[in-house]
């Protein structure tokens, strides 16, 4: 089973990286930019038979290491979610 974790800074936490990237894009002429925040993608391939089981294990990984709850939120998508989203497009 494959899963994708998206780790984002919580709303309200200053994102200095995002601010720098936003300034750089503004410098390139993208003046329509309202906001930009940088996060992380972690792709995981794991031995779990079902999306539910995979989500539970990956959630445990997020709580123990992948995200710092003081600063970050995370979302977990399994390959099914990703495939469904692809099909809906």
């Amino acid at each position, binding site marked *: 089973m494959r899963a994708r974790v998206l780790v984002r800074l919580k709303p309200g936490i200053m994102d200095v990286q995002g601010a720098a990237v936003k300034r750089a894009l503004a410098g390139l002429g993208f003046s329509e930019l309202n906001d930009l925040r940088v996060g992380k993608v972690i792709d995981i391939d794991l031995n779990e038979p079902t999306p539910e089981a995979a989500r539970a294990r990956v959630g445990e990984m997020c709580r123990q290491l992948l995200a710092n709850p*003081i600063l970050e939120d995370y979302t977990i998508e399994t390959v099914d979610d990703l495939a469904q989203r692809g099909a809906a497009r």
Partner: protein
Amino acid sequence: MRFGVVVFPGTWSDCDFHYVVSEVLHQPVRYVWHRERELRELDCVILPGGFSYGDYLRAGAVAGRSPVVEALGDFVAGGGLVLGSCNGFQILCEAGLLPGVLTRNECLQYRCQSSHLVVENVDTPFTRGLRPGQVLTMPISHGEGKYYTDPATLARLKQQNLIVFRYAEADGRITKKSNPNGSLDNIAGVVNPEGTVLGMMPHPERASEAAMGGTDGLLMLQSLLGSLVEDGSFLKR
């Protein structure tokens, strides 16, 4: 007093700390490899600065789950002292041994410079030789030293007097200008409620001999000497 200096892959201040403890403080000291779990014979464990495990994911995140840091839980519960400087502070926060987190400097620059610190709490084994309000000068050297925590935790830190050092001007005034990294309330170091685990971004080991440009770090480290009493506990004042 027996010291241990922890070495992770990527640690860079281990030799500096080892040198200061052995050659300047004249105390027994040994290196502790990051896979070790046996710390019982030590009185004080030092987590030095550097880039443990490359600081991948977040600064100190991987080291915060390493065997030696897991063993620190029991070591601290047994009354042992832990000093984390720079990456060591980041590791202690990631491991949950201290509250809060260190994140990217607000200026986005890596800051390697001299900094002034005002001493806020002298009731710890690490600071009992200092005066409240005393200003120390020590180097900082980090890209991720902005201390952050939620408002409730900040209120608790203040109420319990757990903030030990704050960035200040040379005369001790706390100003925005003297804050090198955007830390909440200019916080440069915090301690646990028991006073036995100190985390700080500055480098006391790099200000421990006149030849290094200053000895204020030594002034702090000397507080530890004589703090160990016969029953194995440590004096806080």
